[in-house]
């Protein structure tokens, strides 16, 4: 018997719609720039064209037959890892490398499910040292260990 065609899941369709909208946006922005003539194409020609291509392809992916089932995933790693990088970006210049690195290590460990304070502290210490030796001393990245 023929297997029933997999139904498109809603999140997938929404994602493809977002892609199509992105393409429309790119095309729109591209059209604000001059197209030029065919003999002398302007800055907007290629981007607008590409935007239209993505719009079209995005719409096509909505109707394409699905190749794999979409499962529900835990959001914790996504949120915590993003938070880790965000905190790093916000603090590395203002509060120094040590704080930023410790934050990254702590948040990524939590994202992975590891909550042992000793392990996190140990790893953070090791990486702060590595960061100091490798990045600040050897590569002369202008970062302060402490503010």
């Amino acid at each position: 018997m023929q297997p029933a065609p997999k139904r498109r899941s809603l999140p997938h369709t929404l994602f493809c719609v977002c892609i199509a909208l992105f393409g429309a946006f790119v095309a729109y922005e591209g059209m604000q720039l001059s197209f030029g003539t065919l003999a002398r194409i302007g800055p907007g020609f290629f981007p607008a064209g590409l935007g239209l291509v993505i719009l079209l392809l995005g719409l096509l992916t909505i109707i394409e037959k699905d190749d794999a089932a979409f499962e529900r995933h835990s959001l914790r790693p996504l949120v915590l890892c993003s938070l880790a990088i965000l905190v790093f970006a916000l603090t590395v210049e203002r509060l120094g490398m040590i704080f930023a690195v410790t934050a990254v290590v702590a948040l990524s460990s939590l994202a992975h499910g590891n909550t042992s304070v000793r392990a996190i502290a140990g790893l953070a210490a090791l990486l702060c040292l590595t960061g100091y030796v490798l990045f600040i001393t050897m590569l002369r990245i202008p970062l302060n260990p402490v503010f």
Partner: protein
Amino acid sequence: MGLFENIALGIETAFTVDALLFCFVGVFVGTFVGALPGIGPLVSISVVLPLTFGLDPTVALIMLAGIFYGSQYGGSITSILLNLPGTASTAVTALDGYPMTKEGRQGLALFINAVSSFIGGSLAILLMMGFAPALAQIALNFHSTEYFAVMLLGLIAASTLSGGSALKSLVMVTLGLILGLVGMDLNSGAMRYTFGILELTDGVSLIAIAMGLFGVAEIINKMTAASAPVASGRPKHIPLRSMLPSREELGQLWAPILRGSAIGGFVGALPGAGPTIASFMAYAFEKRVSKTPERFGKGAIEGVAAPEAANNASVQAAFIPTLSLGIPGDVVMAVLLGAMMMHGVVPGPQFIPNEPAMFWGLVISFWIGNVMLLILNLPLIGIWARLITIPSHILMPTIMFFICMGSYSINNNVFDVYVTLIFGVVGYLFMVFNFHPAPVLLGFILGPLMEENLRRSLVIARGDPLVFLDRPISLALLSISALLLLLPLIKSITNMRNGLRAKASKS
């Protein structure tokens, strides 16, 4: 310059202390990250790249290349010993490699892995020495029209050949193209998609994108699928003598190795097709030509030899289009091209004639690297086996650390860290919805180049778009592109027709 002078030049370049040291560092790191599931050559090269800015460009490239081909050796170690492929391209090796470990023949498997990889890589290097300069010569006759057509073919080939939905990969490629255009347009001075952000004037940083898409996204992915198989027990000490094959086994091995190398060399030279496809094809082919295919999957030595020769051959062969034409043969090559550009080297057909020392230095360093890897993989195998059992809850935060520090150090600006963050999140979403992120980088590198060639062709042809069809090489390349685009379409139409017929015949 004759071949011998070139080789001499290469030896002179590759045998300096710096070059040798960094070649070793590269292949060592490569083996290490190859063996570790979770990080691969792509992330490592992206992270190491900013660290290479102070180095001589040739030495930097030697090291980065070493990471790439070294990872193909390392990935197989965990495949064989623990049934945990370190890289996707070595997944096939586990099919027969792990059963050999269970039978206690892991020493032999590792030996075959090392030797096949070495032979595969060496043959591909020979191929490169022969073909790349010749290809560059031909390409010097290319005009912008042919360049555009070749790049288009490369991108379409990458989308349609790399498995998964071709449509989705095309979306990814186009996204990459658009990203590549962000910044100030050199021709008109117009700011494109910068939205007033000063840091975007020079475009988005390649490394930040690579680290986000492949590093962060992969880490989030691994953490989310936390029910990953745990390494089953510590691998035992493996004596050197247990590794050597018997005479009979040697006789069985040379053909699969040669076949695997051939498939790998061919596949690797194609833009977009990489070691993963090469190893799968070599395994499938080997099984088909074998007189005893039922042995495969249970510990057939050919099942280890062929894919291993193939993936190493393909990795070396990927350098051919990259160095001779400036078209990346693989996603990692795209990053390497970016690295070259960052060091002020212009890739393309003029590369080999203009910088013979760099090209031949690289070639010779590939030989050196492969020899180093042979040594690292045989006597030192016990060290690797123990090293790779680092628990992931130490590994993942460490990688995050390197990604954060690495992206900051691109421009000493937190903006790039934000870029990495955004692409990490977006990249993860892509993975969840089955979009492969790799083609984005290909599009990113080729985007500005394609536009330039398009513009130039149209200027020279005074606005006549048919110029792409008038010139024979361009026409041929575009036809192949069209064919590659139509094939999956025809397949799905045929599928639909068969489905309808089956339904009709039932009613």
